[in-house]
């Protein structure tokens, strides 16, 4: 016999956001050496907590190679990551989220960056970091996927750029 299904407990996690809520917690782009090229937080953390998280994610993700899956369990969340050349794109989500969908989201995001910067490389992201934030904000908002059409996002970015 299986155990009776209890209603999911609605506790409050850190900083007043429900644990178990399916949302993106943060998005990180790091290079192999551990330098952060982009950090977008959708949950409240202290500065030193943020630093610790960045270091931990780096440690966990860089030891994995091609024979590992793209999903890692991390504290009580899950990290979905993909490596493009020397950069790791990591999205931290809840354990109940759909891994494959977020993997697609990462790829979508990278393709937009590629179009926007015309064959993007790491230096582009470094020198134009504020533009990268704009791209992130066009595609993700409040911890959710916002716009999925690449053409639309690019159109909007060009419009913003002209202002």
């Amino acid at each position: 016999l299986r155990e009776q299904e209890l209603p999911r407990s609605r506790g409050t996690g850190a900083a007043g956001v429900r644990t178990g809520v399916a949302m993106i917690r943060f998005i990180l782009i790091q290079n192999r050496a551990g330098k952060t090229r982009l950090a977008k937080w959708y949950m409240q953390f202290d500065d030193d907590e943020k630093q610790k998280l960045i270091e931990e994610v780096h440690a966990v993700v860089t030891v994995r190679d091609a024979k590992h899956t793209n999903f890692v369990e991390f504290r009580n969340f899950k990290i979905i990551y993909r490596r493009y050349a020397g950069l790791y794109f990591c999205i931290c989500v809840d354990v109940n989220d759909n891994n494959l969908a977020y993997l697609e989201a990462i790829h979508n995001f990278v393709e937009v960056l590629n179009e926007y910067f015309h064959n993007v490389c790491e230096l582009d992201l470094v020198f134009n970091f504020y533009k990268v934030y704009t791209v992130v904000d066009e595609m993700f908002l409040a911890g959710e996927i916002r716009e999925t059409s690449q053409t639309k996002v690019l159109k909007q970015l060009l419009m913003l750029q002209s202002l």
Partner: protein
Amino acid sequence: MVVPSLKLQDLIEEIRGAKTQAQEREVIQKECAHIRASFRDGDPLHRHRQLAKLLYVHMLGYPAHFGQMECLKLITSPRFTDKRVGYLGAMLLLDERQDAHLLITNSIKNDLSQGIQAVQGLALCTLSTVGSAEMCRDLATEVEKLLLQPGPYVRKKAVLTAVHIIRKVPELSNIFLPPCAQLLHERHHGVLLGTITLITELCERSPAALKHFRKVVPQLVQILWTLVTTGYSTEHSISGVSDPFLQVQILRLLRILGRNHEESSETMNDLLAQVATNTDTSRNAGNAVLFETVLTIMDIRSVAGLRVLAVNILGRFLLNSDKNIRYVALTSLLRVVQSDHSAVQRHRPTVVECLREPDASLSRRALELSLALVNSSNVRAMTQELQSFLESCPPDLRADCASGILLAAERFAPTKRWHIDTILRVLTMAGTHVRDDAVANLTQLIGGAQELHAYSVRRLYSALAEDISQQPLVQVAAWCIGEYGDLLLEGSCEETEPLQVEEEEVLALLEKVLQSHMSLPATRGYALTALMKLSTRLRGDNNRIRQVVSVYGSCLDVELQQRAVEYNALFQKYDHMRAAILEKMPLVERGGTQDEEAKESKEAQHSEAALVPTEPQASKLLDLLDLLDGTSGAAQPPPPLEPSSEGTSVHLLDLPCVSSAPASIPNLKVFEREGLQLNLSFVRPPGTPALLLIMVTAINTSEADVTHFVCQAAVPKSFQLQLQAPSGDTVPAQGGLPVTQLLRILNPKKAPLRLKLRLTYNHFGQSVQEIFEVNNLPVETWQ
């Protein structure tokens, strides 16, 4: 002379040009000083450039909080470039815990109400990232107004900002409920996506919203249907699948709406079947949608055929070459293996294949799943596979694998001999990783299988002769040799090859174990006692044994020393009692935490012990084990023990972990129908005040058997309930062996206990289902 400030690009180049960490820090500190001076001077033209530089420095990890007020100034400026950097700075530098962020509330309000889309977009973005509860409350109405504006650019940002607001301040959800219906008619994917997310969030927060939105299930089904069959717009298609993100979101919402709701689930059935069969699975996008579909099917009240389809899809995933997909398949199969066992069984061979994955997370899940799939028909094949896995598996999985095999063997062993063989093999391969009670279990098992004594002792002897390093194996072997040494020396046993063993060899082996530095103190104890027992079993004189025993009389280890001294005494003063004391041990009752060790030491120490009056202890023993109701017939009487050991083993069984003096709560008869009775008995273990153990006993006094008996229980939300596996699902007729099941209820709040039971079974050729609430629960169960 005013030094012209560096452009952002130049600063970045300078920082990157720094060769060492110290150099970089120098450059940055110099620049920060410039920036600070410039902020003080209040130069409006270049402020945004300064802040941009500061933000870059902040990204590298340097402190930048002195820029916070500048962000505010930039946000209020009319120029767009200023605003952009200002808002970015606000998102990066400000957070809820500082008061500065409240100051931007007003600016955000102004920006939201003036008509320029880009500015509104920025403001919404910032609100949704760093908006605290107070800010959200102030600005909620503004956001709501923007929800229904004509331009989709602002609308989709507004919708997701609404999601954030609801997350922070759940009470505001009723503001955002009405617009949702209209927003669902959107054709713009971005807005639609946001709306679905908003509705999902609303439904998860409040059951009233959930009920309200159940009405839109047909509409959602329609949207998804159109998406799948015709495709809304080509610009949203990813690898041939039209807007997989939207599909996944809709499926997720459908899952929440359909959970535990028959009507909605029915509406969705066709659609889910369609999506499941028609999605293109060659690329990841299609698989993502398929995976979400499977999860939805599993969660709602779907028809059985659909569930089987879902499990088959997962099985197909397992064969996929992409290991990500195998990973998600294994995880999901684990979740459904309990409820759809037979469907998952079909994929057993594939699961076993996955054991060989190089990635540890995959092989771990495959192991868990394989263990869950073992049943009585495939147990031999499965243990074979699992054992070969045990040989080659990574060390962190060894313990789990070993204990898993042992558990499976215990539950499904076809014959005792096979069981003993399996445990033996596991102990040889991974002896150090098994759980502590494996030794006790094995000795008890061997003790109980009278016909296999000779066989076991031979196998153990040969195993021991090969390798004395695996401690559990050595312990069991030593015990066996001690008990059945005479059978070992007899020389003939039809189940293994004849093994000629000399007495001296046996003694030599035991001495080797005693002296080896690899042996734990516990193992040494076993070996010493075994030697002692052999003194009565072997035919030769006992000089060698006596020698060893007297040597150990001065051993440094206190435990060994005590044993040796007592054994010495046995040889000298109490020689006449030696034979009786060292007789073969009777079968031990399995109950509570039996420790072989403790039993043996007690047995040795008892030589002076007065014979305790066994009757009262035995009845107390009966009370402890008698969690069954009185009508169930006698609990097994304690086996005919010889006087001394009987006293000690009853002492021993006084130690069990559950309770030494159960609080006596009266039993309760809760159900009777056509001869089938259900009784509840309660135990409140004194150590854990919040815990209540209920033993449900089903007895059948009618003429026909009750089959497929399933009992489920439900308790109010503040309780935690755990049902353990029942003893069986057939209650034999005419008062035969009752079916028992243990419920564990945790009641930390000491709330009044309410219990609802649901029974389903077949009786007299009819299937019966009964649901009832248990009344008259005694007060002591929850106070």
